[in-house]
């Protein structure tokens, strides 16, 4: 009757559920949100050995069905069939960590009470074997009354076996699913007695308790060490930001050359008219100057994904807790804030793991102060143009150090703002830190690649739609009306964009911004990196053909003073102009007021910081 079976993956956080999902579905997966929420919905499909089509949904990890955070509520609602958008799954596949049977079996028992067709993936069985844990799968099966399939999600072989086993079981379960009666009303269960029962079953099914995860103990002794711990954390972040610069350089040059070649080819093959100008000066100059930063974004995300997958991220949260506590937050805020270095949007969404509404609001408010990857294009451009590329003390690169300082300025500001907010508008007791420190694992390449692929898709889609549209609008504004015949200034000065820029210039002149900068800030509202594209368009259009060929870097060197460049960098530490961030802040806080508060306070600080930088630099340089 139904074309495809609906399978839901459920499990504790850190059970290896997402790795299993990736292994089953490969690249045939889609991510989106559950309607009316910002909880990420991951779904995909695969075919079993028997040719059965299966639709899989990877539900947010949860320790218990009675958990209260928004994403865990989604998990409960889906397995209970209470979400309108999501049909009741035919079969639940509960993913269990074989090295932590007792805790993970509790969720199995909770799910079992629902009386739905169910399977268990006894995951990370290889790690259990390595720790000399010996589990009697048959005994576990008969104690639970649920089929158990040992799996190693990170290895292809383990997944093939799972696929075969799933195939064998699913046919029976399809019939069972069709017969299952509607769910009885769900009631939270007594976790204590379930925990005891889980402990009893774990004992029955475990032939040998094994030894503890030695690697985790040794690595914790290092990473949480009094001196080594903080040093390693700081060094890791420093290396991460240096890598973003050093490793990305060559691929960025390639992309740059490719874009240049494309523009040259268009200039050579099209007649000199408005269409060619739109393509070369609008589309290619604009989108190209954003796409060129793809390598840096990839490297940053690769670091964040690897840190998360390895289990180190939670140790970072542990080390940062005291600092977070001093401004009234807890270490958990470290993870959303670190994600915000990639992009404030997933960062703000990740605050959902913070249960306390006031702590969550504070974290949302400061997330945009973390230097997101969209600001990298702005920083890279300005640093390349104005900061000499030379070594400092033989080891450090001056450009890298300036970048690091800009990041640091954002972090310090975020802590100050959080401290102020917690003493004023979000006043009240904060929630203390309580979180699992998962065992260390080598990040799996496939999971990293899939994660990166997902991010690249999002980035390219943004460059494709959002940025392309604004670039075309900007090109129109910058190209019309045509300059008078006796024009002495660049063409753009006479255009609509020039007129808007000249009005804005009145506001921005005191902090050293030129009218070209003022114009570029307007489309920069769409996304921060568009500022660079807009500068590209503005300066490309304000010169002759051969000047367009001159790179934006040398163009800026001639056009801006050093204090102006520094002021723009300071502006971008706070820069509130990202409509997507404001939109997600509105959605997550469910309040226009908080959204406007965020935009307002960021703009005020940005203006002040840029001003102070400009005035100070001017006074020093003279």
């Amino acid at each position, binding site marked *: 009757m139904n074309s495809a079976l609906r399978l839901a993956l459920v499990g504790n956080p850190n059970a290896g559920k997402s790795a299993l999902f990736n292994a089953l579905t490969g690249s045939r997966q889609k991510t989106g949100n559950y309607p009316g929420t910002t909880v990420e919905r991951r779904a995909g499909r695969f075919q079993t050995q028997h040719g059965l089509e299966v639709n899989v949904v990877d539900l947010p990890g949860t320790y218990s069905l009675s958990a*209260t955070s928004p994403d865990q509520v989604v998990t409960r609602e889906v397995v209970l069939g209470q979400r309108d958008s999501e049909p009741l799954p035919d079969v639940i596949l509960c993913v269990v960590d074989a090295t932590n049977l007792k805790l993970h079996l509790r969720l199995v028992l909770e799910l079992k009470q629902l009386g739905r067709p169910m399977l268990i993936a006894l995951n990370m069985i290889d790690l259990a074997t390595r720790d000399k844990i010996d589990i009697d799968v048959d005994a576990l099966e008969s104690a639970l009354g649920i089929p158990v399939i040992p799996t190693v999600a990170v290895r292809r072989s383990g997944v093939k076996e799972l696929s075969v086993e799933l195939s064998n079981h699913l046919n029976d379960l399809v019939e069972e699913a069709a017969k299952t009666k509607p769910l009885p009303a769900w009631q939270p269960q007594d976790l204590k007695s379930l925990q005891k029962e889980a402990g009893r079953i774990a004992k029955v099914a475990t032939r040998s308790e094994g030894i503890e995860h030695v690697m985790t103990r040794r690595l914790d002794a290092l990473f949480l060490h009094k001196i080594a711990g903080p040093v390693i954390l700081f060094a890791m972040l420093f290396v991460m930001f240096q890598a973003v610069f050093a490793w990305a350089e060559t691929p960025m040059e390639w992309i740059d050359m490719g874009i240049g070649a494309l523009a040259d080819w268009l200039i050579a093959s099209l007649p000199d008219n408005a269409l060619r100008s739109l393509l070369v000066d609008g589309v290619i100059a604009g989108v190209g100057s954003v796409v060129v930063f793809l390598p840096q974004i990839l490297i940053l995300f690769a670091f964040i994904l690897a840190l998360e997958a390895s289990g180190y991220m939670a140790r970072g949260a*542990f080390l940062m807790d005291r600092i977070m506590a001093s401004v009234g937050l*807890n270490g958990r805020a470290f993870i959303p804030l670190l994600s915000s270095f990639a992009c404030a949007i997933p960062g703000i969404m990740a605050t959902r793991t913070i249960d306390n509404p006031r702590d969550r609001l504070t974290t949302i408010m400061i997330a945009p102060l973390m230097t997101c990857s969209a600001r990298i294009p702005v920083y890279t451009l300005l640093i390349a143009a104005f900061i000499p590329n030379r070594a400092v003390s033989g080891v450090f690169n001056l450009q890298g150090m300036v970048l690091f300082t800009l990041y640091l300025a954002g972090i310090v500001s975020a802590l100050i703002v959080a401290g102020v907010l917690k003493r004023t508008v979000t006043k009240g007791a904060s929630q203390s830190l309580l979180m699992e420190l998962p065992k260390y694992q080598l990040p799996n390449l496939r999971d990293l690649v899939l994660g990166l692929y997902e991010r690249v898709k999002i980035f390219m889609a943004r460059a494709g739609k959002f940025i392309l549209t604004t670039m075309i609008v900007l090109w129109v504004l910058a190209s019309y009306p045509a300059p008078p015949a006796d024009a002495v200034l660049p063409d753009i000065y006479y255009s609509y964009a020039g007129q808007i820029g000249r009005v804005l210039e009145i506001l921005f002149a005191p902090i050293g911004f030129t009218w070209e900068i003022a114009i570029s800030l307007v489309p920069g509202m769409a996304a921060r990196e568009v500022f660079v594209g807009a500068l590209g368009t503005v300066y490309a259009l304000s010169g002759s053909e051969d000047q367009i060929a001159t790179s934006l870097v040398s163009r800026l060197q001639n056009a801006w003073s050093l204090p102006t460049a520094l002021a723009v960098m300071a502006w971008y530490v706070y820069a509130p102009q990202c409509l997507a961030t404001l939109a997600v802040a509105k959605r997550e806080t469910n309040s226009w007021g908080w959204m406007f508060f965020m935009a307002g306070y960021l703009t005020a600080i940005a203006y002040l910081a840029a001003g102070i930088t400009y005035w100070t630099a001017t006074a020093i340089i003279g």
Partner: protein
Amino acid sequence: MPDISTAAENQVTLADMRYGEKGRIASIASQTAENDAGLAARLLELGIMEGAEIEALHRSPFGGDPMSVKVDRTIIALRRADAGTIIIERLNGN
């Protein structure tokens, strides 16, 4: 909240345990002034309940707070104020 002074000789709070010390959870004070009401439920979610075996592990380099502990096979980070509500019966030598 249980009165620690009258507790048996081998009882301490989790916050007072040193690295590597092991014990069994005797009781958990449901709520104190410093802790939020949901604490007991959140502890239970992670498997921290009466009767569970627990081992004190690392302390944060910054003021010794938070600390990490091991319950069964799960390593958990928690703050000292919360650890202070958990009464442990020491296990000697084994």
